[in-house]
Structures are given as structure tokens and as C-alpha cells.
């Protein structure tokens, strides 16, 4: 298929539709609004349901209900809106339902501003809502990857019966890059996907037994039953941690004197700085977590070369991923951090200057 020049917000919406998403509920917010606009246009065309809810809380609860049908369902928002959705996300995780949530992050806290930010890392990876649960969190760094992660997110959500969050930001949402899409899933393929959920979902009975029914609930007042449920979820998370870590290494070699760790938009800018430093004969590597939960601790640890004097973390926040990097590095090298906040994005020149000071 030929490449199309598209905004990240539009590309992820198109890709979600192609991956079989026919149920989408959301409430508009900048810098994510092109996504909901695109869904408003595309869902009716493919026989899907687009609904602009009265609020973010309503939208996530619509997702909760629709996910109970075992169909592919999605919502999206930006930081303050994602905060509003947290109760529903906790319920969806507790009820073990597959759903996809997109967060096109903006500056916070509070209403903040509408510029790109990575300040929702803690919220995305360390809970956000209440209770012992985890989200699988995908962190795209290009429009193509943002689009590809739509189908990846649905596959993971279906596989583990767990909500999956795509953690993008205003820059990825607003920028245009060429993107190539997978073919549109046929109705037969979508129906086939739904069959994997017939053992638990609220759907017409496969066995024709009218008395046969399923219950979906996140309330369990018997502590011993709830304990069993939570521990069983934690066994699932252990499997995810074992199988689903993803990261990219860039310019990592035994010559590296500095190893950078950055995700999403920030990693793009760090790559530019690394390319410039290469011209000066300075060797800097980068580990980019492609998924930030489960976190690729082993990949970060493995990338620390023999000459590395320092690990440098760059984020568009005050150091939220820093803790995870420190866990990975485990004292093998000093860990430094620099970030920009409030919706201000650092430039390649600024990162280059920070890295040059390490030599």
C-alpha cells in the first residue's frame, strides 16, 4: 500500500478501524481532537458506533460496558481527560476486559496547557486508578509506530484480557509523517476474533442454552475470593512481564561513554543529538523503551558498555521514568537526569550540549 502523509491522531484512528475497532466512545480535548473527529467520520462508514459522550467519565464507562461484549473497543483523550477516566480504567482492569485507551499527553498538572508532555508516565505505568492492577503501556515515537500500535494494542488486550494504553503526546498527535497501513480487517476476520471471548463475554449464547449466562463485575465483597482474583491477575502480569518487554537500541556499542535512556518523542530528539556527537567522535548510545510497562529493565542493564561513565535519562517531565532506569542500572553507573516541563520540548541542540558536558 502507498504511503499517506498523516497526523498521528488521524493515523492511529484509521489503524484502529482497520484492526477491527467498531466501537469508540470519547470526549474531545486538545491536542487529541483530530482522533475523535476522524473516528466520527470513519465509524459510521464501516457500520461501527461512534459516540461523543457527555464526559470522559461517561465515555470510559461506555467502554467498560462495550468491552463486556468481547468486541474491540477504544477511547482516547489527553492528560486531564485520562485522569477523569481512571476510575473506569481500574474497573475494566479489575473485571479483566480487553480495551484500548489512547493518551495524547499535554502539559500538566491540572488543566495545564495543550503542548506536548510526558508527565503522565507515573499515572500510566504505576497505577493511575486504585487497586492492584497493571496496564500494558505502549510508547510510540513516530506516526508509523503510533498507527502500528493500534492493532498491537488490540491484540495484547485480547490476548491478556487487560486494558492497554498507548502513551503518545501532543507532538506525535499533531505531526504528520508518511504512514503505511495494514489492510482493513474483513467482517469475517472480526467475527473470528470475537469468538476467542465467547467463554466469558456477554454475547448471544454459542451453545443455545438460554439459562447459560456470564457475569462481568469488579465488585467482590468476599475477601478470600477477591484475594484469589487479585493473585490470579498478578500471575497474569508476571507472564506479561516475562513475554512482552520491548525496546530499541540505537548506536549502542562497547565504545559508548554515555548511555541515554529516553522514550517516545524525547527519544527522537536524543537520536538527533547522538548523530551530531558521532560526527565529533563522541560515542553515545540510546535505549528506547517501546513499551514502558512491562519495563525493559534487562535491555537497559545489558546496554551499559564497559566504558560507560554515565547513564543519562531525558524526559519531558521531572524524571518519572528515572526510577525505573535506576532499578535497571542497579548502581552499575551514575544515573543523571534532565528534562523539560510545562509543554516545552527540548531541542536537539540542548540535548547535545548536555551530553557534550559528559566528555
Amino acid at each position: 500500500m502507498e504511503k499517506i502523509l498523516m497526523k498521528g491522531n488521524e493515523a492511529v484512528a484509521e489503524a484502529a478501524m482497520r484492526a477491527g475497532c467498531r466501537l469508540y466512545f470519547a470526549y474531545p480535548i486538545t491536542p487529541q481532537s483530530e482522533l475523535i473527529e476522524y473516528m466520527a467520520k470513519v465509524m459510521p462508514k464501516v457500520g461501527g458506533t461512534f459516540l461523543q459522550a457527555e464526559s470522559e467519565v461517561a465515555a470510559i464507562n461506555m467502554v467498560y460496558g462495550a468491552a463486556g461484549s468481547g468486541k474491540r473497543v477504544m477511547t482516547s483523550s489527553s492528560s486531564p481527560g485520562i485522569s477523569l477516566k481512571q476510575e473506569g480504567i481500574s474497573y475494566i482492569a479489575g473485571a479483566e476486559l480487553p480495551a484500548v485507551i489512547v493518551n495524547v499527553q499535554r502539559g500538566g498538572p491540572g488543566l495545564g496547557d495543550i503542548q506536548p508532555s510526558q508527565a503522565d508516565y507515573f499515572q500510566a505505568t504505576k497505577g493511575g486508578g486504585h487497586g492492584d492492577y497493571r496496564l500494558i503501556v505502549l510508547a510510540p515515537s513516530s506516526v508509523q509506530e503510533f498507527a502500528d500500535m493500534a492493532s498491537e494494542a488490540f491484540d495484547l488486550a485480547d490476548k491478556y484480557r487487560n486494558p492497554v494504553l498507548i502513551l503518545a503526546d501532543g507532538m506525535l498527535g499533531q505531526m504528520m509523517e508518511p504512514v503505511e497501513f495494514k489492510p482493513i480487517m474483513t467482517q469475517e476476520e472480526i467475527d473470528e476474533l470475537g469468538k476467542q471471548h465467547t467463554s466469558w463475554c456477554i454475547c448471544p449464547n454459542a451453545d443455545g442454552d438460554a439459562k447459560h449466562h456470564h457475569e462481568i463485575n469488579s465488585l467482590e465483597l468476599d475477601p478470600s475470593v477477591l484475594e484469589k482474583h487479585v493473585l490470579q491477575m498478578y500471575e497474569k502480569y508476571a507472564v506479561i512481564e516475562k513475554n512482552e518487554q520491548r525496546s530499541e537500541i540505537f548506536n549502542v556499542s562497547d565504545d559508548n561513554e554515555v548511555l541515554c535512556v529516553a522514550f517516545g518523542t524525547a527519544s527522537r530528539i536524543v537520536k538527533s543529538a547522538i548523530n551530531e556527537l558521532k560526527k565529533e567522535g563522541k560515542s553515545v548510545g540510546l535505549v528506547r523503551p517501546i513499551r514502558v510497562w512491562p519495563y525493559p529493565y534487562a535491555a537497559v542493564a545489558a546496554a551499559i558498555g564497559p566504558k560507560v561513565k554515565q547513564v543519562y535519562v531525558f524526559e519531558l517531565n521531572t524524571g518519572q521514568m528515572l526510577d525505573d532506569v535506576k532499578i535497571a542500572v542497579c548502581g552499575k553507573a551514575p544515573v543523571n537526569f534532565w528534562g523539560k516541563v510545562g509543554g516545552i520540548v527540548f531541542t536537539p541542540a540542548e540535548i547535545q550540549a548536555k551530553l557534550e558536558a559528559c566528555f
Partner: protein
Amino acid sequence: MTTEMICAGFGGQGVLTIGKFIAKAGMQEGRNVSWLPSYGPEMRGGTANVSTVVSDDPIASPIVSYPDVLVALNQPSLDKFAPSVRKGGVIILNTSMCPHGCQRDDVEIVAAPLSDIAVEIGNTMVLNMLAIGIVIGKTNLIKYETMEEDLTSFLKAKNPDLLEMNLKAIKRGMEIGKEHG
């Protein structure tokens, strides 16, 4: 080879469209491209700008620190971005709206009254096509033929007169770009 470009001007001058057409043409010519707009409240009546990168290699940062090419359609945009243009780079400036000009002597400057020329051609709206023409004439970043094909594909049936005017503006821009070559 990588060319990093910033286009800036008042909201409504079509600067985002300059970047978009160049990115799209670059993509159609098989290169890697990125297009990153400024967005937000500052665009209302204020200045708008867009970073466009066209490269043979995968594009790392879509944010441009030091542009190779700057298209400045008004004085505030020129003042903001001219100091960061790479040595030996190109500044295309619209003298109709940049009364104070540019003081850099280590870059190539293509200065012309673009707003006035656009009106001469027939419509102030073709200002951005004129600027694209200068980029083509001066830098060969993209091919005229790609632009012509792209514009023809969506304007020919809808509005052939507008297509003619746009192509005329690009060609005029190319002449201006070549004169300064």
C-alpha cells in the same frame, strides 16, 4: 542528505501549507519526511510556524534547532528564526512584510516583495505557492513536476483557474529563486 526547514508567518499566510506541500512532495519522491506545526492559542492572529524535514535517512528529531532553509513571511518570524539558520543556509524573506530586513551575512538571502507579487499574479492567497517556488528554484529540495502533479490531482476538476494561478505563482517563485542562485 537531510534538509531541515522552518516556515513562519502570520496565521492565514499559509505557512503550514508550505511545509505540508513540501513534505508531501518529498514523500512522493521517495524520501523520508516529517511535518511538525506549532499549534495552540498563539496561532490566532499571531504567528504560526512549521518545521519540515526532508531526508534520505530516517528522521530522528522532527524539531528543528538550526534550519538549513528559513521561509519568513513577516518581520516577527524573521527576527525569531533568522539567528538560528545554519551558516551557509538560505533565508527566504518577504520584504512586503519584513521592513527591517535581515542582518546575517553568512547565509544566502532571497528577498522579494512576495505579498505584492502574489497580488500581481492575481490573489494574495498564492503567497505560499510563490514561496514554494523559491524553495524549488533556490534549493531543488523537491521537483516542480511533483508539485504540479499534486496540485493538478485535486484542483483541475474543481477549479482549473485556481490551478493555473497556483502553478504560475510556483513558476514565478522558481525564477526569483534562480536569480538569487
